[in-house]
């Protein structure tokens, strides 16, 4: 993989920014209470790190030095040193943290706490809690707008996407979507917000300025009952032209034309596919398969599954080191 980077003129700048090695992907294993480290050159698990109870949300810090993982049953967020590949610190959160997001600068982190209907705001430099935002019942999906002004939080029970002003930390709008919204993702140009609904079986396209649902992506797989189609994770290419949506127990990733919102292809990956992450060069997309305990690697350009890697028990989330 790295050889390819060196040979390719367009990504030559990567060589200056990073040592001569492949990317590293960190996968949280919800039942195994571990984080698997995958080398994207050999596509093998190079290390399994013991973490707290029930690791789910997982993300690199913007500088690529640390990996943060929400360990829900321990009511905290653990910090893994990416080089040492061991837990070095913890961050405060509310009870049962599941997912979190950071601002573009990587200074502020927002954590959805499933159990007390709040979003905790953490100063990442000081590693301290600096506030809370009251949101809907059972906060789940979290994302931040590209300009950093609006934080989105989806609520499982009220079926809403809450728009939170990051400067005042007040909810400025609520948009009703389909049942059990799980994940939210902005287009990179900020023109659309996509929200997946696990029970509704759809992805709602929301106008982030007018705060209305302007369209919906629906899924249909012949021979599969509609209740087996449960959209969760969403990945959008940097050009905002193609989106990938994980469909849970349908065991498939839907490839969606992000311009006309139509599905162009379904890729069979692993059992109960949940979340995903692109490699920084966007050549590959890694998706976690909870029941088959593996990670599938998708060749983004070819839209094909090229590899399956066994990880720990019940893989949930995945994050890949930025360059």
């Amino acid at each position, binding site marked *: 993989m790295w050889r390819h980077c060196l040979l390719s003129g367009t990504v030559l700048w990567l060589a200056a920014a990073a040592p001569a090695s492949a990317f590293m992907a960190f996968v949280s294993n919800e039942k195994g209470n571990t984080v698997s480290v995958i080398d994207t050159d050999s596509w093998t698990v190079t290390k399994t790190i013991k973490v707290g109870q029930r690791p789910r949300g997982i993300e690199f810090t913007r500088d690529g030095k640390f990996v943060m993982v929400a360990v829900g049953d321990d009511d905290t967020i653990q910090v893994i040193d990416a080089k040492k590949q061991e837990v070095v610190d913890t961050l405060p959160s509310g009870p049962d943290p599941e997912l979190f997001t950071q601002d573009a600068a990587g200074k502020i982190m927002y954590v959805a706490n499933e159990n007390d209907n709040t979003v905790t705001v953490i100063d990442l430099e000081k590693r301290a809690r600096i506030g809370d935002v009251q949101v809907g019942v059972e906060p789940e999906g979290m994302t931040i707008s590209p300009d950093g002004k609006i934080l989105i939080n989806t609520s499982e029970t009220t079926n809403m996407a809450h728009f939170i002003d990051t400067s005042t930390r007040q909810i400025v709008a609520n948009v009703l979507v389909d049942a059990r919204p799980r994940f939210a993702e902005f287009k990179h140009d900020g023109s659309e917000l996509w929200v997946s609904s696990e029970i509704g079986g759809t992805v709602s396209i929301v106008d982030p300025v007018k705060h209305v649902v302007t369209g919906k992506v629906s899924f249909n797989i012949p021979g599969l009952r509609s209740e087996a189609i449960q959209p969760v994770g969403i990945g959008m290419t940097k050009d905002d032209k193609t989106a990938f949506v994980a469909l849970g127990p349908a065991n498939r990733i839907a490839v969606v034309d992000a311009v006309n919102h139509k599905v162009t292809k379904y890729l*069979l990956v*692993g*059992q109960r596919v949940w979340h995903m992450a692109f490699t920084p060069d966007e050549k590959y997309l890694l998706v976690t398969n909870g029941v*088959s305990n593996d990670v599938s690697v998708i060749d983004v350009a070819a839209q094909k599954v090229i590899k399956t890697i066994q990880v720990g028990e019940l893989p949930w989330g995945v994050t890949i080191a930025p360059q």
Partner: protein
Amino acid sequence: MIGRIAIGALLAVASTGVACAADPRYPNWPCAQAKVPEISLAAVWAGPPLDDVQDKWKEDPKISALVEKLAARRTPLDDAQKAITDFLAASAADKTTAGKLLFAGLFDSLNAQRSSVMNGIERVSRKQREAAEKIRADTLALQALQNASSPDQAKVDELGNTLLWETRIFEDRQRVVRFVCEVPTTIDQRLFALGRTIQQEME
């Protein structure tokens, strides 16, 4: 004496021992894992349609022998996947048909294996319920014997002993059920992994 010590424990077993079914459609299903009666083809197969192959895999002795070997859980998954790769590489000319037949066979066999495991789990669950009722009744009978104005110690000991054995068998079975509940998922995982290998080899 035996009876008196055991009573508290026995009552606890009898009242909480049999797990309550979570899904009202399947009252005898004791597992924490949701009961999914059948694996649907589309959940595990994105290859070409299998309508034209149906039961034909049974007519091909080579394929039916391979299906039997691959479906057996004692065959390690890695070995099974390698056997698929070797078999399909050898049938280069008609790889698609061979792959379809092989998967159709695995789908039928593993689904059948799974159904029989699930039926077994439900049968044990029903028996456990009956056993729990028997333990409850015997416990009450023992209490009555002990509370008599002049207890017949021989009878108390005998019933106490019976109860101890009944409880032991009951608890052993409960442990087995918890273990066996994992089996349908193990079969799901196996079918999916084998199907994925076949599809990759067919591409």
